[in-house]
């Protein structure tokens, strides 16, 4: 296997993207799909070539060589594989989604973004990582904005937070380089872990800087508000990618650098709380808070994409909690949930995109009853929310179960309680979305809505299968973990094709699925044995034969969807939700006010002399200052 394939994974999508800037929209979407097939092919060809390295060193600074190093690691390949599998489905979905009416100019940038994604997962030097990271940032901003003013407002919010994190990361990279003289990720990780004994504050600073970068990208507290804007306003087909894959970069970063650093830190150098170093315990609570915020906000949101974005925030919270347990079980759980979330949230967003494609509505209470006209979309959404709620026998349960096992192992029961709260809250908002969009009364406006187009339906069917497989056979995904765990010095986890062993119990996905199947079969037979049922139109009962129209009650008004959880709203009134947003807004406004102040000085010609005099004073003051 030639190392040039690694470069190809990055350069090829970028190149195709640049070429397709000049192509007509429709063609560029085909090219997009084509590129993804190629990427998937190359990724799976790379499967067995761990350690394959492509390195470009060039002397740039007087201080040393810059290295752009790409290599296949176990962790990187895992992320690469799941993301390219998901991407190809999303791209197949997009192919039909971007018809004449819906097409955006996103395809070229999306291709570049895929190149950047591959770059992030392949990078073994911080410079290469940073290059790919930045390339990903601004291309994704352009896609999220996609020429719409509200979308861009959301996108720039995302970008500002993300760029803030990127800048922190840049500082961290330099600090690392000055300390270790290397851009290499693995080397620096080892060195910085060792530094915790000798240069404690330095090591903390570096780790914190990287953590800020990764937290910002993965939307953990206090950066949790960007997904609800960006995911909601992005192109509908891109939201799946955004929520499925892009939010995982931060997770990848945490798993790549921050967590291994703490895991490798010599014992006794840091205060241990509940079996983990205190910064990780802090991360656990940050993640737990994130998941609670995500959950509560999702419960009271009326916009379906925004709701799912908050749900993504909550799920990232679970992943963060899992990572913070600093154990092989937790690390594996985080990876598992990452993979599952990629698929189930991807399919949820795909289903919502299909809904929006057919109806053009985003506010849930205006929809309703679409299950009766879009059954495949409905089934995708249903399986998606079952997986998201962590109900067996779908994939989400297995990873959530593993997260709990990791928490039990470290006796982090309070965090576990908080996570369980979010997990229960998930039923509330997920069911709300299911009901309000797909169940209840079908509005006459949407009576003639058709099922999503063929390719869209096809990719959704595959997504459904992908949600079922890890649920029934968790080993299909967990089988990859032991190599990854070993590469970071974690003990392996016990897992077979159908079962997983945790700290307090073991489960067998196949048995659960079989038992569930049996139970459903029993009930189905009972159902068949019962007397016949006949179909009745929905508005034909309950009003005892009266025509509901006489009371001015049409299906829309008969659909209970708006302000669904109003009765329990007072329960959450005490929570300072939105405080961070307010803080950011205040900050933004202060910058603007300060800027206006500064420019007002120069606008007024009569102050010109004064500025000069004040300037001289400032020079004097700064000159004599220590």
């Amino acid at each position, binding site marked *: 296997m030639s190392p040039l394939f690694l470069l190809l994974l990055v350069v090829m999508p970028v190149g195709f993207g640049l070429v397709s800037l000049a192509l007509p929209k429709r063609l560029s979407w085909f090219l997009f799909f084509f590129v993804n097939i190629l990427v998937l092919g190359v990724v799976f060809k790379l499967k067995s070539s761990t350690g394959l390295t492509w390195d470009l060193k060039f002397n740039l600074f007087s201080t040393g060589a810059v290295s752009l190093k790409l290599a296949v690691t176990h962790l990187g390949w895992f992320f690469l594989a799941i993301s390219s599998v998901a991407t190809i489905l999303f791209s197949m979905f997009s192919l039909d989604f971007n018809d004449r009416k819906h097409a955006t100019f996103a395809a070229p940038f999306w291709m570049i973004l895929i190149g950047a994604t591959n770059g992030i997962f392949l990078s073994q030097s911080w410079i290469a990582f940073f290059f790919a990271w930045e390339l990903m940032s601004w291309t994704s901003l352009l896609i999220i904005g996609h020429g719409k003013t509200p979308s861009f407002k959301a996108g720039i919010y995302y970008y500002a937070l993300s760029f803030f994190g990127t800048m922190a990361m840049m500082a961290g990279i330099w600090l690392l380089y000055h300390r270790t003289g290397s851009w290499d990720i693995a080397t620096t990780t080892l060195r910085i872990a060792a530094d915790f004994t000798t240069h404690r504050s330095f090591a903390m600073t570096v780790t914190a800087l990287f953590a800020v970068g990764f937290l910002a990208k993965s939307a953990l507290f206090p950066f949790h508000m960007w997904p609800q804007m960006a995911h909601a306003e992005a192109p509908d087909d891109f939201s799946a990618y955004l929520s499925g894959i892009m939010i995982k970069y931060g997770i990848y970063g945490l798993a790549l650098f921050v967590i291994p650093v703490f895991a490798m830190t010599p014992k006794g150098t840091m205060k241990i709380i509940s079996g983990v170093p205190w910064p990780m315990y802090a991360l656990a609570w940050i993640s737990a808070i994130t998941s609670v915020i995500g959950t509560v906000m999702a419960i009271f949101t009326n916009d379906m994409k925004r709701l799912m974005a908050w749900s993504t925030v909550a799920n990232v919270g679970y992943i963060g909690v899992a990572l913070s347990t600093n154990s092989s079980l937790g690390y594996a759980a985080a990876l598992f949930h990452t993979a599952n979330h990629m698929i189930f949230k991807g399919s949820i967003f795909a289903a919502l995109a299909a809904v929006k494609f057919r109806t053009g509505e985003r506010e849930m209470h205006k929809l309703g009853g679409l299950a009766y006209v879009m059954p495949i979309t409905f089934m995708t959404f249903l399986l998606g929310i079952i997986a998201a709620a962590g109900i067996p026998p779908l994939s989400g349960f297995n990873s959530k179960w593993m997260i709990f096992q990791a928490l039990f192992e470290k006796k982090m029961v309070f965090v576990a309680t908080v996570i369980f709260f979010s997990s229960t809250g998930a039923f509330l908002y997920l069911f709300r979305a299911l009901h309000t969009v797909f169940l209840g009364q079908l509005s006459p406006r949407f009576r003639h809505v058709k099922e999503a187009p063929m390719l869209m339906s096809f990719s959704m069917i595959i997504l459904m299968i992908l949600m079922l497989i890890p649920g029934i056979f968790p080993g299909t995904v967990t089988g990859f973990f032991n190599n990854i765990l070993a590469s970071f010095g974690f003990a392996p986890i016990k897992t077979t094709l159908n079962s997983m062993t945790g700290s307090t119990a073991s489960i067998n996905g196949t048995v659960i699925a079989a038992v569930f199947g049996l139970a459903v079969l029993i009930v189905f037979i009972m159902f068949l044995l019962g007397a016949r049922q006949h179909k009745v139109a929905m508005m034909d009962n309950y009003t005892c034969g009266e025509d509901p129209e006489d009371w001015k009650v049409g299906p829309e008004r008969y659909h209970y969807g708006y302000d669904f959880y109003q009765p329990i709203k007072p329960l959450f009134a005490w929570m300072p939700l939105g405080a961070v947003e307010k803080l950011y807004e205040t900050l933004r406004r202060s910058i603007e006010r300060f800027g206006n102040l500064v420019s007002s000085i120069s606008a007024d010609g*009569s102050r010109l002399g004064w500025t000069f*005099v004040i300037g001289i004073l400032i020079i004097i003051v700064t000159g004599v200052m220590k």
Partner: protein
Amino acid sequence: MNNTIFILGVGAFFLMMIGLYGVLTNRNVFRLILGLGLMETGVNLFIVGASYWKGGKPPILGTVFETKAVDSYADPVPQALVLTSIVIGLGVTALALALMVRLKETTKSIDIIETKEEEVNE
């Protein structure tokens, strides 16, 4: 310290300060230009003063002063500097006045403060 140098120095300083005061307190372009002119004069005076020494002769060989010793000459460089600076000052002032006239023509005022949204240049 020599009396003359003292007087020159203080004079230069005060000229500069008067000029600066003018620049700081006015928004009328003409007065601003006047203030700048005063400052420039002050600083020129300062340069000339800096090269003064009592009994220094004009640095010109074979003239009416008939001094042969180079030691007794006043330093010629500052004078050259001042000449240059005066010329430059003249140029700047002339340009400034021309700009002022343009300003008066276009806005009917010689106030430096922006009064309204102004037209823009491509």
